[in-house]
């Protein structure tokens, strides 16, 4: 044993103690972390730990009104699926609907009432209580109401239906204001107007895609974004593969190949705005060839005199042979159906175009027939259309605001600063309105300009009801119920209005204490219209049954004997489209289309949809402008070149995507990106093509002719990498597309040709 001095001894003891501590900590650090089991104070009735509870409710991501089933676990929403019982979507659901969870759990939600403390738009919001917020608004409204100036209040909402729409009506009526508007960018004003003119009713019919054998679609992207895409996709699937011996054929007529165009058997590009001319060309051939034998045959001959095949071929750029072939197939395939909308309706002649499409259906007898066009019965509750504001109405609103005729603007969910062209001057008009109140759940561009924000629940937290437009051929409706308790200090839109009504002393006219009561009241009427013999015993059991099923409907279909008025035939005709900007200075027609993922921009704050590749280009997280390879070649541009897209009304910047399926003199851009607010996922990403649109209107409805702006493309010399999942669209000599020439066994002599460098074999027969 060596001698250890005092110093050494202390060193050893010190090292030993540090070692003990380190060893202790080491063992501690590799232990299983402590977790807690937090029980309920009171066990809730409707769920058990670890067992999913499904609630049926209604999707509110677009206006189609699909039924959804939401899977909840321990009181939290986990997954959204389609409700199999709902006739609109029959268990299916689109990507937008699936992403509803990210609306609920979005980190950028407004979590409580806010008051603008600085200059408007400075984003210096202070938190306030609901009582403060409501009384601030109610005081202002009360002053106006008692001074008989209630008409200086405007309520501008997104498209809503059912009892909430009814409540809006009542509330504004009590204030004495007629300024109640719904505004959605993609509301099909022209389609309603065309049906009003042709059928005499302002309602969407039921297009029986499911049972048709030959579909002509004039501009309607019915699989991607047009009025009720999930229902149409179901019909498409059945028509293609649901019948063992029949395969439905589809022809898509549009200047830029959409998702529906890609799924069609034939894609035909008519010059922008001439889709209606083409329809009349077909109609002319049908009448002239003697395929139509109705009593009013002479009237039709007279009305269609100017639309001979050759003339139409010249104006539309579609060959005469194609026109006659389409017309003949359309007549001889039964049942057939023509639909029109989307880009075809978004021109200055939109209504005339869609009337021409209706005429085609009339001439071959597709009306009221299975596989054709069926008429919808009166909906059982309120729908949004009668209050939908056209572009012209929005311009009038902006003008009123500039004149100082509007003192309070209440916004609900709609975002006109983003979804109106800059040329409308809406942002400047807002500056003239003394008080702007927003009920939005998110800080969108318009809400950012509000003075008071009273945030609404998301649709998964609130009561509501819906009567789908377009209908499904019979009367149907659905109640939307909360699937989770509210996450934040927000209130249902209806409850906010009821709160205001109470403070204004309007309880006599608006008697409900909560939105749930209001909806039950509406549905009591629906219960009472049922046959007393067969309906549920009491309203309570009816209500429970509707909530459980998530949908309600009446079986009877509507028989509608349709007679065409003579005046309608005489009014048929499609004038040449008018464009904003001269063709000399602005050589290209801008084709902005509603995105399959981000819709009209409302879904840009949902990361799932930002990262979902666009179905045609596979681009994610950004904007792009689609150019035909020929055009790109002429301009010396390739994929990723940044270009300025300039119209007479503005300029935006986006990278080029070379897209073979677009007309050479058309450039296309998806709508949805280019937000300056709207949360971390949407903000400062891409460009918004709506900004640069000219204030060109559809002549009859005043709807925005969004496909009628001319632009020029200016190279900037800068390049970016487009983020996309698809690789090269060309073979590049790699032998990916292997082909064989007919071979001796078939006996036919083939010769090979090259189309866009993809080798194909043409076998002569």
């Amino acid at each position, binding site marked *: 044993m060596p001698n250890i001095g005092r110093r050494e001894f202390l060193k050893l003891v010190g*090292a*030993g103690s540090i070692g003990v501590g380190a060893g202790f900590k080491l063992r*501690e650090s590799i232990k299983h972390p402590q977790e807690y089991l937090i*029980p309920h104070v009171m*066990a809730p009735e409707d769920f058990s730990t670890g067992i999913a509870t499904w609630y049926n409710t209604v999707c509110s991501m677009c206006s189609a009104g699909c039924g959804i089933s939401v899977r909840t676990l321990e009181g939290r929403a986990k997954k959204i699926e389609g409700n199999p019982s709902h006739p609109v979507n029959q268990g299916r659901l689109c990507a937008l609907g699936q992403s509803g969870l990210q609306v609920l759990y979005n980190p950028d939600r407004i979590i409580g009432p806010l008051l603008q403390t600085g200059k408007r738009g400075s984003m210096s919001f202070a938190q306030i209580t609901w009582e403060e917020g409501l009384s601030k608004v109610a005081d202002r409204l009360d002053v106006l109401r008692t001074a008989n100036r209630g008409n200086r209040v405007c309520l501008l909402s997104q498209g809503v239906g059912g009892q909430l729409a009814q409540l809006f009506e009542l509330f504004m009526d009590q204030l004495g204001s007629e300024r109640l508007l719904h505004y959605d960018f993609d509301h099909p004003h022209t389609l309603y107007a065309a049906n009003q003119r042709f059928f005499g009713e302002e309602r969407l019919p039921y297009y029986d895609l499911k049972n048709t054998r030959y579909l002509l679609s004039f501009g309607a992207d019915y699989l991607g974004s047009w009025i009720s895409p999930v229902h149409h996709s179901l019909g498409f699937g059945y028509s293609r593969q649901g019948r063992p011996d029949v395969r439905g054929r589809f022809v898509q007529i549009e200047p830029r190949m959409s998702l529906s165009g890609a799924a069609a058997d034939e894609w035909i590009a008519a010059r922008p705005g001439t889709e209606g001319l083409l329809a009349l060309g077909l109609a002319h051939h049908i009448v002239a060839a003697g395929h139509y034998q109705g009593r009013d045959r002479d009237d039709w001959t007279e009305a269609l005199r100017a639309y001979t095949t050759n003339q139409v071929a010249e104006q539309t750029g579609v060959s005469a042979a194609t026109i006659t072939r389409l017309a003949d197939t359309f007549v001889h395939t039964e049942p057939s159906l023509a639909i029109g909308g989307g880009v075809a309706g978004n021109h200055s002649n939109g209504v005339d175009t869609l009337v021409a499409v209706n005429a085609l259906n009339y001439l071959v007898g597709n009306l009221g027939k299975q596989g054709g066009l069926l008429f919808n019965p009166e909906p059982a509750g309120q729908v949004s259309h009668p209050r939908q504001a056209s572009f012209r109405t929005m311009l009038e609103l902006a003008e009123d605001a500039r004149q100082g005729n509007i003192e309070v603007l209440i916004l609900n969910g709609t975002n006109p600063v983003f979804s109106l062209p800059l040329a409308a001057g809406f942002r400047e008009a807002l500056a003239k309105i003394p008080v702007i109140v927003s009920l939005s759940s998110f800080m969108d561009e318009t809400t950012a300009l509000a003075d008071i924000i009273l945030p609404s629940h998301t649709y998964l937290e609130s009561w509501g009801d819906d009567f789908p437009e377009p209908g499904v051929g019979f009367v149907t409706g659905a109640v939307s119920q909360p699937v989770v308790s509210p996450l934040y200090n927000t209130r249902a839109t209806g409850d906010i209005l009821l709160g205001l009504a109470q403070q204004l002393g309007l309880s006599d006219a608006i008697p409900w204490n909560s939105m749930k009561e209001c909806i039950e009241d509406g549905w009591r009427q629906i219960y009472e219209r049922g046959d007393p013999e067969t309906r549920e015993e009491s309203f309570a059991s009816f209500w429970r049954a509707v909530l459980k099923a998530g949908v309600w409907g009446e079986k009877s279909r509507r028989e509608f004997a349709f007679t065409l008025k003579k005046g309608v035939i005489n009014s048929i005709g499609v004038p040449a489209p008018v464009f904003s900007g001269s063709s000399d200075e602005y050589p290209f027609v801008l084709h902005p289309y509603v995105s399959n993922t981000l819709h009209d921009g409302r879904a840009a704050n949902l990361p799932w949809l930002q990262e979902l590749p666009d179905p045609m280009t596979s681009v994610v997280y950004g904007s792009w402008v689609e150019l035909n390879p020929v055009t790109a070649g002429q301009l010396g541009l390739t994929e990723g070149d940044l270009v300025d897209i300039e119209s007479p009304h503005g300029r935006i910047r986006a990278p080029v995507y070379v897209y073979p399926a677009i007309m050479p003199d058309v450039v296309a851009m998806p709508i949805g990106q280019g937000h300056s607010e709207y949360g971390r996922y949407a903000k400062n990403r891409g460009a918004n093509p709506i900004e640069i649109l000219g204030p060109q209107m559809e002549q009859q409805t005043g709807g925005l002719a969004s496909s009628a702006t001319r632009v020029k493309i200016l190279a900037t010399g800068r390049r970016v990498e487009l983020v996309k999942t698809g690789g090269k669209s060309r073979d590049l000599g790699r032998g990916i597309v292997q082909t064989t020439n007919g071979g001796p066994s078939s006996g036919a002599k083939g010769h090979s040709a090259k189309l866009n460098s993809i080798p194909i074999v043409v076998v002569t027969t």
Partner: protein
Amino acid sequence: MNVSIVPALKVLRPAALVAFAAFIGVVVGYWANAAFFPGTSPKQPIEFSHRIHAGDNEVPCMYCHTEARRSISAGVPSVSKCVGCHAEVATERPQIRKLMKYWNNKEPIPWIKVHDLPDFVHFTHKRHVLAGIECQTCHGPVETMDRIHVTSRALDGSSQLDTPWKMGLCLNCHKEHEVENGTDCWTCHK
């Protein structure tokens, strides 16, 4: 040339001694933690005794853990369930007073989880309970414990206190009972 390492060792010896002392310290510290602070039987916010409830009074397990037979998790009883009996029973005991304090404040009791499998294991109580497996097979003789210990099984089937579960123990049982797909990875790791 003669080279000796002895001078070098002489210099290094004090340092080696210090390192050796530190190493001994680490071993002792590690052992002390493992032996005296195993963490396999944490102190709960209320000293709830399974011995009194499940043992002496023979309350069935699933009277409180109601979800075990129909859910992946066995479930912890809500505070209201405890109060359901203890509004009348043993109201003067200090632990019950603690319980009533939580109840009066309408606060949940933050129980500490004792039996915990890693997140990559998909274990479901429902299947095992419905197959007739006794709770004690995995959880040990709970009815004898005042404070719950992590328990696993020895190869002879007896309970091993304060030993965490290992995958082999699951597999032993699955093989023994010839469970359909019982040794398939995806049965548990999904």
